């Protein structure tokens, strides 16, 4: 009996979650603007680091990525990031902050279970897919490039 009720209510929730399609454009607009602002800040940081430390652009790009990763980890740990993600969605998930967020939240979540079986075993639980498919696809495409395009 209780199980039936639960099933109905979860079914209703699912229907409610999937029916409104009209604000998908609004979500897309928010993601576009937030993502665009992140891109502009990234370029500003590259110019700033390149000018201030007088380093080449590639090194400044790495510094910029590390800055964003640090901010993503910090705000995830402080608890703000999840609220921002529910507002901006892909505007924060697609940039590298989403990668940092997935590692940091897994580390925080499994921290209770100890250092080895908790943090060590589960830290890359969500980010592992990105790393693994990135490596496999890069390898396959690299072979393809070597066969088709010759020397780089």
């Amino acid at each position: 009996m209780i199980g039936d009720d639960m099933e109905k209510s979860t079914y209703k929730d699912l229907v409610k979650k999937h029916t409104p399609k009209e604000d998908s454009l609004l979500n897309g607009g928010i993601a576009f603007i937030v993502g665009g602002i992140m891109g502009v800040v990234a370029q500003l940081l590259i110019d700033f680091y390149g000018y201030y430390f007088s380093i080449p652009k590639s090194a400044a790009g790495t510094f910029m990525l590390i800055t964003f990763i640090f901010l993503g980890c910090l705000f995830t740990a402080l608890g703000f990031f999840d609220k921002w993600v529910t507002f901006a969605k892909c505007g924060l998930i697609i940039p590298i902050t989403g990668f940092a967020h997935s590692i940091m939240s897994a580390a925080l979540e499994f921290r209770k279970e100890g250092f080895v079986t908790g943090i060590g075993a589960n830290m890359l639980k969500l980010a592992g897919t990105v790393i693994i498919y990135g490596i496999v696809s890069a390898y396959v495409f690299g072979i393809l490039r070597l066969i088709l395009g010759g020397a780089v």
Partner: protein
Amino acid sequence: MIYLNAFLFCGFICFLGQMILDHTRLTPGHVTTIFVVVGAFLDTFSLYDKFILWAGGGALLPITSFGHSLIHGALMKASNLGPMGLFMGMFDLTSSGIIASIVISFFLSLILEPKD
């Protein structure tokens, strides 16, 4: 001008991700994985390098640049050493991102409590 390009490029990629997320049943994990594979594919014939020249930080920030730098490092080593270079150079450019995320989140998870 590069700031406008960065805004448009990064915003467009986030918009695409949001559209995929809204109109299919894929989770954010699927979407980021798709974008990494797309980034690796775009750099197979050095297309993504042009995006980086055009949009600067706007092209380096999205997760597509992760796939780009994986294959870029691998191909750079492969140009000297042949196919075996693919194994050696894969992490040359990406290591900073992965190592920074792991080290920073490890130490922050020691210091800070999870807040729910």
